[in-house]
């Protein structure tokens, strides 16, 4: 029982990180119908920049660790968002009218640039993330161990997801976002500034992805330049699982995949952990071709 509980908690932690990354995929897909392959690498940029910023903040500036952490998260969200907006402007907007395949290849190209950029700056070997910034203490709740890092990840990611959900559902800008996801041309005719909103999507998604990068660093204590690919693929799987373009779907899918994965890793074998997400994906798509929470956007076409 305790082992199941522990695995569930671990699964929820990593699942909420998957969900944060998946939100970036699903939002971009919702408005552009583009699989943003560069998103996973933006997440990796967040992790690497985060490690450098934290090291600098602790050693050079000598600030208390909690302040360093908060500042790091804000800085990373900002920088990765700037990078995301630049990528949209340089690599995606010019090919938007050319159909979907050129945009896909362009996204793959950006992904290669980012991944190799990280390798050139921080090196190809795995790098230790300064995860000691949070206290090592673990609470014992009925035998299940909860660390500060896990608690922080769970709280922050839920807070971010709920804020995003409220923003998209309850505000005027959110309504406009939903409108361009359904029909860009009509939305434009209604006076919605489509380019501005697409830029907003490329601010929110990468900011969340960057924060998720810092979280992974804190949680596992180690980062490598190819992590964008493996986490990105999983997060995209999550987005499809939940029904791509669907924000609550990404959240549900993330938590579900995280839990399934950690249960499988605990009870089957760690070697096959990477495969499990794909097997789950294929099985779910066979039963529900539009993902768990369906997909209204593409159904009408």
């Amino acid at each position, binding site marked *: 029982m305790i082992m199941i509980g522990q695995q569930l908690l671990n699964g929820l932690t990593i699942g909420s990180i998957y969900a944060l990354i998946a939100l970036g995929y699903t939002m971009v897909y919702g408005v552009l119908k583009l699989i943003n392959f560069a998103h996973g690498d933006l997440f990796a940029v967040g992790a690497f920049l985060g490690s450098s910023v934290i090291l600098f903040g602790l050693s050079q500036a000598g600030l208390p660790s909690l302040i360093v952490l908060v500042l790091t998260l804000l800085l990373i969200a900002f920088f990765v968002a700037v990078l995301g907006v630049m990528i949209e402007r340089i690599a995606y907007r010019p090919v938007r009218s050319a159909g979907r395949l050129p945009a896909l290849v*362009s996204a793959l190209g950006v992904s290669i640039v980012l991944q190799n950029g990280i390798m050139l700056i921080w090196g190809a070997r795995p790098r230790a993330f300064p995860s000691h910034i949070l206290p090592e203490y673990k609470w014992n709740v009925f035998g299940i161990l909860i660390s500060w890092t896990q608690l922080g990840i769970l709280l922050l990611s839920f807070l971010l997801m709920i804020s995003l959900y409220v923003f998209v559902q309850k505000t005027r800008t959110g309504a406009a976002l939903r409108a361009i996801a359904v029909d860009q041309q009509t939305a434009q005719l209604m006076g919605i500034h489509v380019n501005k909103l697409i830029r907003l999507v490329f601010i929110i998604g990468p900011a969340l992805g960057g924060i998720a990068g810092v979280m992974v660093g804190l949680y596992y204590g180690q980062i490598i330049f190819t992590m964008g*690919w493996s986490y990105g693929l999983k997060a995209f799987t999550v987005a499809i699982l939940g029904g791509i373009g669907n924000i609550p779907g990404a959240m549900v899918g993330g938590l579900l995949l995280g839990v399934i994965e950690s249960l499988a890793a605990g009870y089957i074998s760690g070697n096959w952990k990477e495969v499990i997400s794909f097997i789950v994906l294929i099985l779910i798509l066979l039963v529900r071709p539009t993902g768990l929470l369906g997909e209204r956007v593409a159904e009408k076409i």
Partner: protein
Amino acid sequence: MMTPKADQTARDALFGKLGHNVLTILFFLVAIIYPWLVGLNPYYLEIGFNFWLWSLLALSLNVVLGGPGLYNLGQAAFFAVGAYTTALMNTLLGWPIFLLLPVSMLTAAIFGYIIARPIIHLRGDYLLIVTVGFAEIVRLALRNNMFGITGGANGILGIARPQLGPWTFTSNLDFYFLSLLYVLLAMWVWRQLEHSRVGRAWAYIREDELAAESVGVNTAAYKTLAFVVGASLAGAAGNLYATKMTVIAPESFSFWDSVVMFAIVILGGRGSIPGIFLGTFAMVVLPQLFRGLESYRMLVFGAAMVAMMIIRPQGLWPKDMRFRWRRPLTEGGEGR
């Protein structure tokens, strides 16, 4: 800038059917004398082999991507199946390489059918991610030594060279011409299909699947057929690769390899054979020639992919120029 019409007329004059044939013959003449043009230098012969190998792989993906226009970003899986079939049956059973060519193609085709059949109804991007998933499952199954015979991460060594009567293919020159022959065969297959009932059905599905279905085209069957044909050609490439390298390992069939195949086809122009050769040159040969730049090479490579798509989204040598001018009128139309 020329008007679309003038551009088209100029192109017709230059590359009319006759011009096209002359260019094709010239291209293959150069291909045949290439080994002597580079003075039989083994390094350049190796690059030549890689050129044909990747052209063959891109041709195999082109059946799916340029035929019915399905997004397949997991073609490396079929390449792997072909290579491992050849490697296993050669090292364990001692079957000769050339006999294993049809066997590898058949195995890959069966594999393609098994993968494609249940997922063929999925829309564009769903299909894409599922093919990525399948390819990863295959690679990890090989690496985890699933059946206890794939050799795990080290792969399989000691694959034999192909023999034809008393003659064994060993040198880079032999393999250069062998790979050229495989490519010619694959081109022939594509040409036959393209101008047949099957090819027309694929074109219809690519342009408007709903319309195709509503006039009675069995879209699921034709789409599956594209996967099967594409897989069998990739299986042939696997056979060629295994016997050339004599050593294969799971990491040769990664996501990255699928990306390169995908990029070649899109960069060259979907469905266009000259486009595939140009795309292979840009994606495979150029990076090898610039090996000196080392780490910055990949950075430039990625940036070039983006730049190419901005400058020529329709590909370097699209199949039919006129398409480009009709395109904006019909929203969507491709691989939903």
